[in-house]
């Protein structure tokens, strides 16, 4: 059980997929325009990573080494198709705003990376811990970026229709650049610099 906790905890900070490993940058930057999108993307990644880690850990003894990558990709692509169809049926608004980044989870390096580095070598139980930890780490990164972008870019704090009020000054004069693509690059660059400066994460 102690090891379960350890495998879970490492995804949060020590090997945070976004800030430390710099994996999965495309969806991170693209869907961090609002907190809603960030949470929706996290849900999709959770389902896919959870399923992929369990399946890959379960079949790890039967997969020939030479064909493992195509097998992993087919498993991941199948799970992504399932998630895509569920979102289309149950969460059409989210499906619409995540756009092609939902199917693009297939080529998200976080998921294939975990399959290759962890689930293909470890038992199912720890692979679950790994999937949960990495997803929470991904969620932390997405929420930080999208929180800053939404506040600066729109000036309001609406989450799934619940209005938590406007931010003074920014509410009337939002800085639209922050919800546009350049804002995403700027925020993640400054956050990375800040983490290195404060020593939370190691530099190069």
């Amino acid at each position: 059980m102690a090891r379960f906790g350890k495998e879970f905890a490492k995804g949060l900070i020590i090997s945070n997929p976004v800030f430390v490993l710099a994996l999965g940058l495309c969806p991170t930057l693209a869907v961090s325009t609002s907190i809603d999108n960030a949470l929706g993307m996290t849900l999709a990644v959770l389902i896919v990573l959870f399923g992929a880690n369990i399946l890959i850990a379960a079949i790890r003894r039967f997969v020939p080494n030479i064909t493992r990558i195509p097998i992993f990709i087919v498993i991941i692509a199948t799970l992504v198709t399932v998630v895509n169809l569920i979102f289309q049926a149950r969460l059409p608004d989210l499906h619409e705003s995540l756009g092609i980044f939902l199917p693009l989870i297939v080529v998200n390096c976080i998921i294939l990376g975990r399959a290759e580095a962890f689930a293909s070598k470890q038992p199912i139980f720890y692979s679950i811990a790994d999937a949960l930890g990495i997803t929470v780490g991904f969620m932390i990164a997405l929420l930080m970026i999208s929180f800053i972008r939404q506040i600066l870019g729109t000036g309001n704090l609406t989450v799934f229709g619940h209005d938590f009020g406007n931010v003074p000054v920014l509410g009337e004069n939002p800085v639209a650049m922050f919800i546009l693509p350049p804002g995403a690059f700027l925020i993640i660059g400054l956050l990375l610099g800040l983490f290195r400066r404060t020593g939370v994460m190691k530099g190069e």
Partner: protein
Amino acid sequence: MNELVAIFLGMVLINNFILSRFLGLCPFFGVSKQLGSAISMGVAVTFVMALSALATWIINTYVLIPFDIEYMHIVIFILVIATLVQIIELFIKKTNAQLYFAFGIYLPLITTNCAVLGITLVNRQEGYTLPESMVASLGAGLGFTLALAMMAGIRERLEMANAPKAMRGLPIAFVVAALLGLSFSGFGGMV
């Protein structure tokens, strides 16, 4: 004809794959340290994008739609891309050793490059015809190469720059990308 030009310019400048659609960021930050390798990578990606767009268009139109199995498109597209990349790699290895050393090492990386799967999904979503998808994929590839080459040119000089210690490397590269993106957003109202 005008529509094709509009799609092309849109893909290269306005909806640049890297700077405004965030597709293909891993090579953008990974392979953009030297101008030479950035351009090789860009050419390799453009080539694979065009071939994948062609192959997936044919499969989508003549297999997936007639048999009503469009929900399979994600699995099929990624398999087509992975297979294509393997074939190209083998072909180049056998026929042109020099070319293989120039960008052979980038080929395996391209399978999991979201720009390639991205263009096939965009083509499908927009319902482009065959000429339109070919123009779109070439434009997207050129835009990708352009952004990668610009970034590499800047980063070669950035190595000498006296940036704050915590910002060196990846963080400052993101800030540079933000400035590049800002300047590209000036193309917004062009077409």
